[in-house]
Structures are given as C-alpha cells and as structure tokens.
C-alpha cells in the first residue's frame, strides 16, 4: 500500500491519510442476531448471583459479572444471555465473553436515566463501555492528581478516520462532553489535539486546541502529551504520574451524548478498509461479530487472508470472524493473502533505516541484537527498550523484514511479567 519512494536519501515521511471529502455519516449496520461483550475479568470469577445464562436484558442495561466496579458490560442488544465463556485476549489477558441473542423487540433500559447526574461515580459506573471506552480510573488515585485532560482527536493509526469523522461531524457532542468532563472530574484544563489539516474555527468549545503534525506517529498519546506538557516524559513515568489523562474524541462525544440524552450510547463508529484499500465508515453496535460486517459488505474471505483490528501499524490480527466489535475498535482492515508482507528470520544487516526513522531516537540496530538473543534486561538497561513508543515504524522499514516491533513487545511483556512475579514473591516472603 505505502511503498518506498524511488529516491531514498531522505527519510520517508509516513502521512496520516485525511478523510475523503465525500464521507458524510457512517452507514448503520442492520440489527445483529447476537452480540458478544468482552468484559475484563476472568471467567472463573463470574458471580452466578449477579448474572446467569437465560437472563433477559434490555439495550443499554448494565451487566455486572462480579462485585468489582469495573467488571461490567453494557448490553447493546435486547435479548437473552445465551453464553458466558472464557475468552483469552492478547498477551495473556483474560476476558469473559457474554453473548446476547436478540429478542424480537428492542427495549431500552432506563437505569442510567436515574443516575444521569454528571458525577464521577455515575460516569465510572456506566460509561466505561461506551464507544471510545472512556476510562475514569485515573481520577480515583488521590495521590496522583490529574491536572490536564487531553482529548485525542488524532487517529491512532494510518488509514483510520474514526477520530477525524468525530471531529468533523460530532463537534456538538464533543462540546457537551467537554462540559460534562469538567463537571465530572473537576479538571479545568482540557486540551483538544487535532490533525493540522482538520477544519478550524470550532468556536468556544471549552478546551484549548492544539494541532499536531500530519506525519505518523505524531498522533501517539506519548507524543501528544509531550507536546502539551512541553517536556519529555521520563521513561518509566506513566501519564498518571505526569498528571495527564487521555480520552479519545469519540469517548468524549459518547460522554456528551450519554449525559444529554440520559441514555448510554452503544453504536461504535468504525473505519472499514476493504482488500482494495477502499475506506468507508460504518456504525455498528458494540459486540457485533465481525462476520456480520463482512456479510453486509459482501466480502469473501479466502484462506490465509488477514483481518486486522485497528490500523496497519499498531493493530492486531484476529483468527476468527466471530471476534466482536469492542468499545475501542476504531478500524477493521482486511488484507488479501497476496498482499501480506511476511517477516523473515534474516539477521540485521545494520543498514540504519530504523535508526533514522525512530521517533524515540532508539538505536534499534543495537537493540534488536539483544532482543533476538533474549537479553531483555540488558536491552532495557543499556539500549533504551523502555523509550519505545510502539509505533511499528522500525519493522515497517526493516530491509531484513525482522519483526522488531514484536520483539520489543515481547521483551516488554516478559520484563513486566518477571517484575510482577518478583513483587509477588517479595510480598509472600514479607508475610
């Protein structure tokens, strides 16, 4: 899709693709026969007293799986719970998949109507599964207060246009969302990060606007946060440590819509990119299986094709078309088996393309030698593993087609696992 230019003496600039002019509103998908909600809690913890197969649910109803505050999903379809299964997510994360089979009639739940005062408690209790997945967890830590909220109007990847659409067509919702965010969190300093070529003149929206460069990866949260804070975030410090917190533009629009309409929204805007690279916007209920979208668009999948959730640089590929749309699913990208760029096990030839392109100024050519050998601690100590922004550019430009990004993720995951095991052992010995 995006190939090296003939001239190679300057570093290539990877541009975010702007939204085509003819896009207006996303095409709504027809009502699915069943939806699957992925709730972030292990299936073993599910409390039978709270939820059981056969329960009837209404659209917008909160389904709590355990007594923990975050372990809930919002039904996006009226019907009956038909299955509650274990669902292994990426990097060892455990989810519980709750499947709802549609009933004939659509009925709306009104529990949120009584709780639609814009307070932090209500927002955290009902909106975590709204489109855009707004997280209110950062506001629950009193010793690390948030002083700046960044509304991310940049799409997280190339080709994606969900955020651009939200900025262009749902500004009223965003404006309302910003108002409610201030009321809910008490944070007055809100910054809206937008692409440089987005339309301007938003008027009074209650937030300061900051334009970002149109070159990938300028829309990654860490780069936006550094631009807003006007300083580099030291490695090992989280956004929470720095007092900033992110909401996507769509999440803020969802907050705005929820508190104005007193209904929890569950229609997710998704950029759908077909095998030919044509992009369209669709609006699907959260939990809709991807198979439904493919059927609607009459896409025929062949053996060894690839379905990618998220964009081409940072997304993840899935193995089944039954995978549901999630609150943070901004894009679905299809690749034909003939177009798939495969990785190789060739060694690094030290051409330096990755080093010249790395936005975090990491010596990738040195780092990858340690990662390939499994020396993760050395990689972290001496070769700046933790500075990686996870943009994927190194793998994208690699002449040897080394899966550098995968090595980096694996190394970070392993180091994190070892660290958490060590803390667990320490705590065990302390007791």
């Amino acid at each position, binding site marked *: 899709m995006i190939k090296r230019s003939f001239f190679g003496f300057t570093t290539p600039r990877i541009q975010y693709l702007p939204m085509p002019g003819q896009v207006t509103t996303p095409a709504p998908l027809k009502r699915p026969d069943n939806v699957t909600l992925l709730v972030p809690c292990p299936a073993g913890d599910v409390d039978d007293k709270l939820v059981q197969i056969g329960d009837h649910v209404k659209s917008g109803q909160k389904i709590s799986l355990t007594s923990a505050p975050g372990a809930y999903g919002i039904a996006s379809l009226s019907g009956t719970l038909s299955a509650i299964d274990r669902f292994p997510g990426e990097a060892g994360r455990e989810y519980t998949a709750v499947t709802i089979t549609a009933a004939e009639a659509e009925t709306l739940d009104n529990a949120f109507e009584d709780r639609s005062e814009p307070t932090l408690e209500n927002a955290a209790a009902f909106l975590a599964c709204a489109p855009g997945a707004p997280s209110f967890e950062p506001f629950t830590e009193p010793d690390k207060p948030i002083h700046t909220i960044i509304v991310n109007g940049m799409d997280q990847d190339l080709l994606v246009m969900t955020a651009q659409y939200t900025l262009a067509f749902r500004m009223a919702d965003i404006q309302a969302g910003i108002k409610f965010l201030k009321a809910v969190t008490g944070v007055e300093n809100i910054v809206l990060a937008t692409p440089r070529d987005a339309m301007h003149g938003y008027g009074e929206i209650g937030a300061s606007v900051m334009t970002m460069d149109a070159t990938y990866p300028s829309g990654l949260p860490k780069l936006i946060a550094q631009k807003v804070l006007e300083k580099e975030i030291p490695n090992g410090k989280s956004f929470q440590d720095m007092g900033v917190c992110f909401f996507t533009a769509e999440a803020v629009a969802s907050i705005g819509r929820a508190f104005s309409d007193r209904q929890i929204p569950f229609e997710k805007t998704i950029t759908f990119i077909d095998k030919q690279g044509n992009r369209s916007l669709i609006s699907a209920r959260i939990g809709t299986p991807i198979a439904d979208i493919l059927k609607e668009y009459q896409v025929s999948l062949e053996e060894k*094709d690839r379905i990618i959730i998220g964009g081409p640089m940072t997304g993840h590929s899935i193995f089944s078309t039954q995978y549901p749309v999630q609150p943070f699913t901004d894009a679905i990208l299809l690749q034909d088996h003939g177009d798939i760029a495969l990785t190789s096990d060739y060694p690094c030839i030290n051409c330096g393309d990755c080093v010249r392109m790395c936005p*975090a100024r990491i010596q990738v050519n040195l780092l990858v030698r340690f990662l390939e050998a499994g020396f993760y601690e050395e990689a972290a100590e001496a070769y700046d593993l*933790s*500075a990686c922004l996870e943009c*994927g550019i190194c793998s994208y430009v690699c002449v040897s087609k080394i899966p550098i990004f995968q090595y980096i993720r694996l190394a970070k995951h392993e180091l994190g696992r070892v660290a958490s095991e060590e803390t667990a052992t320490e705590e065990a010995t302390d007791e």
Partner: protein
Amino acid sequence: MNSQKKLIVSHAPFLHIGSGITERNLHIIYAALPALLLGGLFRFGIPAIGVVCLSVSTAMLWELLMNRAMKRPVSVGDGNAALIGLLLAMLLPATAPWWLVITGTFVAIVIGKQIFGGIGGNAFNPVALSVAILMVSWKDYFDFNGMLMNYDPDFIMAYPLATLKNFGVSGIEQYSISDFLLGRQSGGIGATFGIGLLLGGAYLIMRGFIRWEISIAYLAGVFVTALLFNLTDPTRYADPFFHIFTGYTLIGAFFLATEDSSSPVNFIPMLIYGAAGGLMTILIRNIGAYIDGTVLAILVINLINPLLDKIRPKAMGKVV
C-alpha cells in the same frame, strides 16, 4: 467455527515499505556495472571477464558450501555473495591467476563473512579484508605495472600511485585528471573508470542504498588530508585530485567503506568514520610503506566502528 477458512495471524505492523536485501544487493551490483563494463571489461578484455566470472561464481559457491557446512538456510539468493565476488574482482588486476581469485573469494566469504555468522555479522568489510590479506601474502600480484605489462594502450600504462611512490610529484606530471575520469589509467579491473564509479556512487546515494554521509566524509577526508600534505611540500606530495581519482579511492568511498554491517549508522559517527578513512588512506599513501592504503584504511575504520556506535543521541525520555 471450525469450518471457517484459516486466517493469517501475525504481529503488527501489517505493511512493509517494500525494501529487501536481495533488491539492495542487486542495485549495488547495478551501480558497479558502468565502472566494471566500460572501465574494466572493455579495457582489459577476455582476461578480465575471466577474473570477474570466476570471482562471482566461486564467491557464491563458497557461500553455498558454508551454508551447507553450517547447516544454515541457503543464502546465495540474497545476492550478497555475488556482490562480494564482483567487488573483489573489481579490485584485482585483470591478469590475476585463477588460484588468487579463488583464495580471495575464500577469504572474503569464509573468513570475512561466514565465520562471523553470515550477512550482517561481519566486523570487517569482507572484500577489503580479502584484498588486504592477498596484498600482504602475494604482493607481486598487486603490482599493477608488472601484472598489466602486456597491455599497450594509447595512454600511460604505468600505475599512477606506483609512479608517485617511486618518482615523486615530478613523475606524475604526465598524468591528467581527465584520463583518470575516462578510465585511461592502470589499476584494478573496476577501479579505473572515474566517471563510472562516480555515476554508480551517485545512483546508490540517490536511491538510499548507501549512506551518503560516509562516502562524502571519506572523500572529504582524502581531499583535506592530501591538501594539507600538498600545501606543506608540493614537491613531495601530490595534489588532492590526483589521490581522489587514482587507486581504489573512488571504489573505496562508494562501495567498500559504505558496507552496511561494518559501518556506523548515526550522523556524527558516519562523518568521523568516513573522514578517518580518508585520513588513513592518505597517511598510508604518503608516509606509509604501501602504494595504496585504501583497503587497509577501511579495515582500520571498520575496527573503530563499535567505538563510534557509542556516540549516539539520547533516547526520548531517558534520564541520565
């Protein structure tokens, strides 16, 4: 679910810029062709064709044998062995005996490259290493005056650098830079045609297959050092242009010093690396024992490359 078609699952990113090692090596070979065909094969005829063919084929053969012996995937197809064979032939005299060529490719591929683990692992440029070892072992075969004695073209067939070494600046007054540029000089098969090498180098730089900083810094290093020598004593030391267009300077600047694995990738290290190479080349030529120090100078800068890697920008968010 089981009746479904199987999908490919892999890690991000799902796009690739489309570059590849084979493509890269092929284009370096293309870039070497003008100097090789017009400057070498046309000038030196059948013996040169023999050396080039033998060198490329035995280099690939050594690569294949090493792949087999080390039980590694066959890597002949990536073009790197062919490139090494080609560059080695370009440095040899047209009348090099067959055993010298085969020994040369053995040293380059086996000792210079495969022992370090193959492509990307070599600390030294395999071609420079091989030529250096051959030059030290059988120095008569690198005496271009002796080797190319039977050629009698319409230009001065005395090897310019040897003339400079033996007769001083007064001896080289008969040469002209335009002859050097047009390939009307004695030397290695592919190292005589200045315009061809400059074109090849420009192509590689333009397409981004080599790092321009190294070539430019190398040539600047040669120029400045030669100029300083020349300024101190114009009767003993040749002018910088003479040094740039004779011997292995141009092929060294564009094809040898820029070899990926043995050269640095950051801006300042590349400049130091290149400039040090130019400096060493002229030091060896002007006050050293060897007639042409290019390959030795390149081995020396290969040696300082790991040290230069320590000069690097501070990573984002790094707290010192």
